[in-house]
């Protein structure tokens, strides 16, 4: 107890993790902090902030996971967040995770960290893959040349992480970290020295920035930094000097200043790499295993069929494996509802309260919880797709198609993430640099069918299409995807004219995902649904139950209840779509709060637990109107959480309203189209 107190009292050490995307940063973060993690947002922006804790040598270390970036310029929000954290929060140590199989590119970020004067410890990660390629890195020499500690790690197997923490702890003592100097050549250095003099004479600047780093940034004209400097006074001389220097240098050397500096940086990195890397294999392989797989997977003709097959397999897996669970959980809730009801009755509980617990909570929340295994299984499959490296290939395959439609290939990654949950998908649109491309992606992402819609499909497909469940649900996911692409095309043509921006993206090598990391990712994403069931779904279900009991004395969940009024008021709109009942209407209305609530509401209304629910639905819908209802659920108005995210990301109520309005119209049109066309061809 006292020891714990002592730990508490000591000043916490803060270690930030920085690194490129795909450098294995998340894996190292997970193995450092285990389950002691918190997820939040960086202040003022929606970039996800992950923090964790670890105890080593009796010291508590706070680990902050910075967004994965290739650079610390200010071309994206992620980069600005990472840069500002290092500049202004001044973590004790920055652990820079470097993918050694891509050493040169990864070291670009490293040089920036060092120039900023951060206290850097390097994790030379993926050293196992490097070894497999018969490449050696001389760690001691690497560390000596950069003047900072370096440790070889294999994040996926938790190798080297202990040593990494020890090195980081030791490095906290370095009050004055050695600032690495890249020599930019005589002409540039002369100008840098003059700029640095100006900076040094300004106390405000020297208090906040490493002077040499700032001089380099000012000279190369980093927009983010120049904007950030605008709040300081007395900078006129510096800026005038900069303009003159740029003019002089560009005239003298015949190159733009940015390229000049970049060339020198890469020159430094190239020299460093040459010193420390030895290839034992004399003839390097011209095409790796990944390349060979890519030749098939990204093939012009096979690419899209393979992608569709992967999707189809994913949904089949979700159903075939999840199906028995549904039965078990249904049986459990039936039994539980019965036992709880009997027990409450014998305990003399008032009938109304009993109804709240049995019909409302067990019937409503239970009907949603039934589908938790499917949700976890789908996230499991998505995690495998992400961790194996296939996600990037999907974007590659779709780029050609998307490009002909005027969309950006990278838009496809948010769309795929949308299969899991639309909230992170909308946020993932941030990787698109162009504002227009980004806005289009945000607008079409809610059309992607997320796991919260899954309970609705499973319930209805199970009631009407039990033989072809997988196929029916696959068709809905595909419909969402096709409509998203078509709507994107329309928006591009009529709302956001102009060319698409550049497509460049890393293709990480294929990896067999480890069971551990797949489970961690599945749990991270899936557990939020359990929380959701305990909070918003619980609250809405109770609200629905209350409304179905009011006004006082009304028959429970009848058309005369307030719930019935609301439903009856809206229902006529859905008559042409084949589901003009008040029950269907009110389920859709409350489903806006969270899509699972569509099932939850039906559960409360039809009471009677899960088996009864399926039977009740089989009465009120036909197979055709059930399909139309699923189409409506897929497309209409994004859920409240997504609406909130769209507002934050677009920073505009106008676009948020537009997203809600067009999806409602589209959903209604498609549902009506399905129903009327189905009747025409005699399916109804």
């Amino acid at each position, binding site marked *: 107890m006292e020891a714990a107190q002592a730990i508490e009292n000591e000043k916490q050490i803060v270690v930030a993790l920085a690194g490129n995307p795909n450098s294995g940063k998340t894996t190292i973060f997970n193995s450092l902090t285990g389950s002691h993690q918190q997820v939040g947002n960086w202040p003022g922006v929606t970039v996800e902030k992950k923090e964790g804790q670890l105890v080593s040598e009796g010291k508590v270390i706070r680990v902050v996971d910075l967004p994965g970036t290739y650079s610390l310029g200010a071309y994206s929000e992620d980069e600005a967040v990472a840069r500002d954290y290092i500049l202004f929060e001044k973590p004790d140590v920055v652990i820079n995770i470097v993918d050694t199989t891509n050493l040169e590119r990864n070291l670009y970020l490293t040089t920036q960290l060092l120039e900023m004067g951060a206290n850097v410890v390097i994790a030379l990660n993926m050293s196992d893959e490097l070894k497999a390629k018969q490449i050696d890195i001389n760690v001691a020499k690497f560390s000596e040349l950069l003047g900072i500690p370096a440790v070889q790690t294999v994040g996926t197997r938790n190798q080297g992480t202990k040593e990494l923490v020890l090195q980081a702890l030791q490095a906290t003592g370095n009050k004055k970290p050695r600032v690495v100097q890249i020599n930019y050549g005589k002409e540039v250095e002369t100008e840098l020295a003059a700029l640095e003099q100006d900076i040094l004479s300004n106390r405000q600047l020297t208090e906040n920035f490493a002077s040499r780093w700032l001089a380099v940034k000012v000279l190369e004209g980093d927009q983010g930094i120049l904007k950030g400097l605008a709040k300081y006074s007395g900078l006129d001389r510096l800026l005038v000097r900069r303009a003159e220097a740029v003019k002089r240098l560009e005239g003298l050397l015949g190159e733009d200043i940015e390229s000049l500096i970049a060339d020198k940086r890469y020159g430094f990195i190239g020299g460093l790499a040459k010193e420390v890397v030895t290839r034992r294999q004399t003839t390097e392989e011209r095409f790796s295993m990944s390349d060979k797989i890519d030749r098939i997977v990204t093939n012009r003709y096979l690419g899209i069929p393979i992608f569709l097959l992967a999707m189809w397999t994913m949904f089949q897996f979700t159903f075939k494996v999840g199906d028995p669970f549904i039965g078990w959980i249904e049986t459990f809730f039936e039994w539980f509802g019965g036992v709880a009801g009997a027990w409450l009755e014998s305990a003399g509980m008032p009938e109304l309260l009993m109804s709240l617990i049995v019909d409302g909570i067990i019937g409503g929340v239970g009907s949603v919880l039934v589908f938790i295994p499917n949700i976890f299984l789908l996230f499991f499959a998505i995690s495998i797709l992400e961790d194996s490296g296939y996600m990037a290939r999907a974007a590659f395959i779709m*780029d050609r198609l998307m490009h002909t439609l005027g969309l950006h290939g990278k838009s496809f990654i948010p769309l795929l993430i949308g299969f899991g949950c639309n909230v992170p998908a909308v946020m993932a649109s941030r990787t698109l640099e162009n504002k227009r491309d980004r806005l289009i992606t945000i607008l079409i992402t809610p059309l992607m069918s997320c796991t919260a819609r899954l309970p609705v499909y499973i319930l209805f497909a199970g009631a009407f299409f039990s033989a072809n469940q997988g196929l029916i649900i696959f068709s809905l996911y595909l419909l969402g995807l096709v409509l998203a692409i078509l709507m994107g095309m329309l928006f591009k043509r009529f709302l956001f004219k102009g060319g698409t921006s550049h497509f460049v993206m890393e293709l990480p090598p294929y990896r067999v995902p480890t069971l551990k990391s797949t489970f961690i990712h599945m749990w991270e994403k899936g557990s939020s649904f359990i929380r959701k069931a305990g909070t918003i779904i619980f609250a809405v279900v109770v609200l629905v139950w209350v409304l179905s009991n009011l006004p006082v004395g009304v028959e429970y969940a009848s058309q005369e209840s307030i719930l019935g009024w609301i439903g009856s008021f809206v229902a006529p709109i859905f008559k042409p779509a084949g589901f003009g009942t008040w029950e269907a209407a009110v389920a859709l209305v409350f489903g806006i709060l969270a899509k699972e609530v569509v099932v939850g509401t039906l559960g409360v209304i039809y009471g009677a637990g899960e088996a009864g629910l399926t039977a009740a639905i089989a009465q009120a819908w036909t197979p055709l109107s059930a399909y139309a209802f699923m189409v409506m659920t897929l497309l209409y108005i994004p859920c409240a959480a997504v609406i909130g995210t769209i507002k934050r990301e677009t920073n505009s109520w106008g676009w948020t309203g537009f997203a809600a309005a067009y999806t409602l119209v589209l959903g209604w049109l498609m549902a009506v189209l399905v129903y009327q066309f189905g009747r025409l061809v005699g399916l109804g």
Partner: protein
Amino acid sequence: MGGSVLPLGFLQVGRDAVVRELGNGRNLTQRLLEMGIVRGTRVRIIKNDMGGPLIISIGDGRLAIGRGMALKILVEEESKA
């Protein structure tokens, strides 16, 4: 060397080249720079369908590059080994 200078997008699969010019446009240069492509970078064409994006290798890393971008990057082809 002394090979001819041509757009990256014109190269056949398996060919090696050295980047000479990055086209213009601040954003383009910056994006390429972050991904490790500067003048003097050696690249190899891993996949090029003459339509749609390319896959190129830079050392052991692989990048997907859109066709439009690949036509703006000028490279010098290395003579066949």
